[in-house]
């Protein structure tokens, strides 16, 4: 296999410049064309004129494949049965169906990983100390999506909650707090709008 090093030069068709342009191989983060996920820090051919990624060498394929496999793997956690009931009730309250559960979870995880002011991660850890955080773990929550693993890892950093299961449990309890207990009007409106446009 021909191995490219950072700094190697070549030429390629650049779709941004709409012409053949000289290129240099550099380390780049490259998104997937479906908008879900990014391959981080791989060697790619970059257009010298506009800076866009125009080529990838076969040596970067294993890194690309790894990210695709992680995208497809669901994030899972075993939780007490009442947490599934919380999610189903919240989903029913917002959309009239239990099919909205995955979207509610992804909405919360994504918003909190972005340090959103309305859906804030700031007191998430406190929910783990509540009575509702306890119980035999007899059911499973499974969340799929290109960005979910990335968002959960970001949230772990923001909240200092180390385990994925604890992140998911605390998110469920926050959903209970916002939607079913305190009935936070701003969050409920945002989620109802999402439900109306997607279901």
């Amino acid at each position, binding site marked *: 296999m021909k191995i490219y090093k950072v700094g190697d030069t*070549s030429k390629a068709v650049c779709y941004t410049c709409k*012409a053949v342009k000289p290129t240099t191989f550099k380390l780049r983060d490259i998104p997937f*064309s*479906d908008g879900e996920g990014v391959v981080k820090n791989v060697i*790619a051919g970059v257009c010298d004129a506009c800076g866009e990624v125009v080529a990838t060498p076969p040596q970067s394929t294993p890194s*690309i494949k790894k990210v*695709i496999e992680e995208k497809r793997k669901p994030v899972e956690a075993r939780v007490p049965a009442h947490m599934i009931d919380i999610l189903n009730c919240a989903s029913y309250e917002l959309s009239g169906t239990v099919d909205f559960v995955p979207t509610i979870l992804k909405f919360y995880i994504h918003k909190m990983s972005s340090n959103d002011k309305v859906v804030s991660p700031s007191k998430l850890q406190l929910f783990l100390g509540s009575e509702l955080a306890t119980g035999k773990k007899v059911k499973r929550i499974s969340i799929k999506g290109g960005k979910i693993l990335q968002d959960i890892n970001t949230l772990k950093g923001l909240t200092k909650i180390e385990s994925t299961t604890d992140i998911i449990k605390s998110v469920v309890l926050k959903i209970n707090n916002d939607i079913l207990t305190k009935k936070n009007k701003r969050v409920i409106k945002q989620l109802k709008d999402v439900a109306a446009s997607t279901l």
Partner: protein
Amino acid sequence: MGFKKEKYEVLKRLLLGNYLHEARSSISEKNLLQTGKVSAETVAKIINKARGGDYSTSPHHFVDNIEVHILRKVTYENKSWYIKWYSLEPDLFFISVHA
């Protein structure tokens, strides 16, 4: 260059690992070789099965002196494959590899 010579050239490059994948600022899951879903060996087997009737060429969208080589409906392991590539010396670029 006729199909036979193009086939020889792309097979040689594939088996030596001497090629690149076109990227339009992102990674497309339409190139299964780029994403690792199929191996270079498998793509070589598909190309090897192709005959003249499966092959055509067309000028590249932006650079019309680049000839894009296209294999359509090459049957391999019960799937019908589509492969597209071009040469831009000294390199060869795959655009699409999918069933």
